[in-house]
């Protein structure tokens, strides 16, 4: 008896299901997958070598400036930071390739911070930067006025380690803070120099020009060399830079906001 009830129920369900499927209804579906791979592109226009040849007294006193020697163009699909870092074999001094003579009281330890940069336009996303200078946007000081650290390049023996919030960035700074509207304040939002429309008379947030300057002075102590807090790194102790050929490497690092 119990079995007959069960069979009856199953038959009933089958018949009823037939009624349900007897109506026109059908569905198809597609699965849409979207993969957004992070894209960070830094286009750099610059000579392979930027050479400073000091062969005139006025060059020592007045320094040499290379205007807009480097142009940086950014495209990024994510919030980003951009910084410049000077580096060398030991990460602190220029590499001496050739020495001209061996004059008394000379040293081959020229600080990397002797290289000064000036960027156009200024850093717009450095709300939480803590350094004395947040970027390289200050105009070069007159050559006869020592300005240690104001425009000195950030340098490191570990160039791919992002600088702290107390160091200069070209755009952004250490940190990932956002404002009340969700916009980043310590990194530039994703975008591209290709489509960014700058304010009149300015560049966009994705386009920079970089000037370079070195002022050896006489004696050649590089009075503008210094840390970002203003501490001078000029050659002291009555020494001066040994004549010769020196090289250093400047890297421009574009990275996701961090």
């Amino acid at each position, binding site marked *: 008896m119990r079995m007959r009830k069960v069979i009856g129920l199953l038959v009933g369900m089958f018949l*009823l299901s037939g009624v*349900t499927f007897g*109506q026109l209804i059908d569905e198809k579906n*597609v699965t849409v997958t979207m993969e957004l791979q992070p894209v960070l592109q830094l286009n750099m226009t610059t000579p392979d070598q930027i050479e400073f040849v000091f062969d005139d007294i006025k060059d020592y006193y007045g320094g040499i400036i290379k205007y807009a020697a480097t142009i940086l163009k950014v495209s990024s699909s994510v919030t980003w930071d951009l910084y410049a870092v000077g580096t060398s074999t030991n990460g602190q001094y220029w590499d001496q390739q050739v020495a001209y003579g061996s004059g008394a009281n000379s040293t081959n330890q020229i600080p990397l911070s002797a290289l000064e940069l000036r960027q156009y336009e200024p850093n717009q996303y450095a709300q939480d930067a803590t350094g004395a200078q947040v970027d390289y946007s200050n105009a070069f000081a007159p050559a006869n006025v020592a300005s240690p650290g104001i425009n000195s390049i950030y340098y490191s023996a570990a160039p791919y380690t992002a600088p702290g919030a107390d160091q200069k960035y070209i755009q952004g700074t250490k940190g990932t803070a956002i404002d009340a509207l969700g916009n980043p304040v310590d990194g530039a939002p994703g975008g591209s120099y290709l489509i960014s429309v700058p304010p009149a008379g300015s560049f966009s947030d994705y386009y920079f020009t970089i000037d370079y300057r070195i002022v050896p002075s006489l004696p050649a102590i590089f009075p503008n060399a210094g840390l970002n807090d203003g501490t001078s790194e000029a050659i002291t102790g009555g020494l001066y830079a040994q004549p010769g050929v020196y090289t250093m490497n400047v890297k421009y690092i574009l990275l996701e906001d961090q």
Partner: protein
Amino acid sequence: MLMKKNLLFILLGVLFGYLYPQPCTNPVTTNCSDAVAGTSRFYMSTPGNVDFVFTEMRQYINGITLSGATQLRLKIDENNGGNCKWRLMMYVDNNNTLPPNQWETINTYGNSGNIPELDLIQVKVYNGCGTPLNSGVYQVFAGNTQYDIIDIIPELPNINPAGTCDPNNPTNGAGSYLTYYNEYNFTIDYRIIPGFRHRPGAYQIKIWFCLKEVP
């Protein structure tokens, strides 16, 4: 005894209701032939996966368009002469992701940016007669929430028979893509222009196409 039968009907209704996610609900009339067990047919002649992979800046700027990625073909037979009327729509499903306006996250590749929302994907539906609602125009799921609907052939008060081929009177009666291709065939293009505000990663949604009889 009658009460038990009614209960059984209710239970079965609930059971079969689950076979079709909302909002594709069971019709209340049987003027058209069934597309599963009957002679009507609902074909999707294209793959069930639509993949967008953004790897270059120009893709982020200009977007990616997948033309003709989905093609739907209908063959509608009727049970009762002249009374079969149907509706075709699509709706978006994010697999119950919360908040309901976001794509389902499969993986993320970074920390900055926002999870994409459902109104990011654009769809364009068209056929030879231009009968779909907003035919040939990119549309988004403007409600920006799970199960938001875009009507392709909406529920109309009257039946426009096969051969009408009029965008203002979309065909919604019995007929077949075999004999009236431009009225019973629907092509769907997809486009995504992500811009730069989204978090890198892999995301997924499902777009359902629902064909159902309407009274």
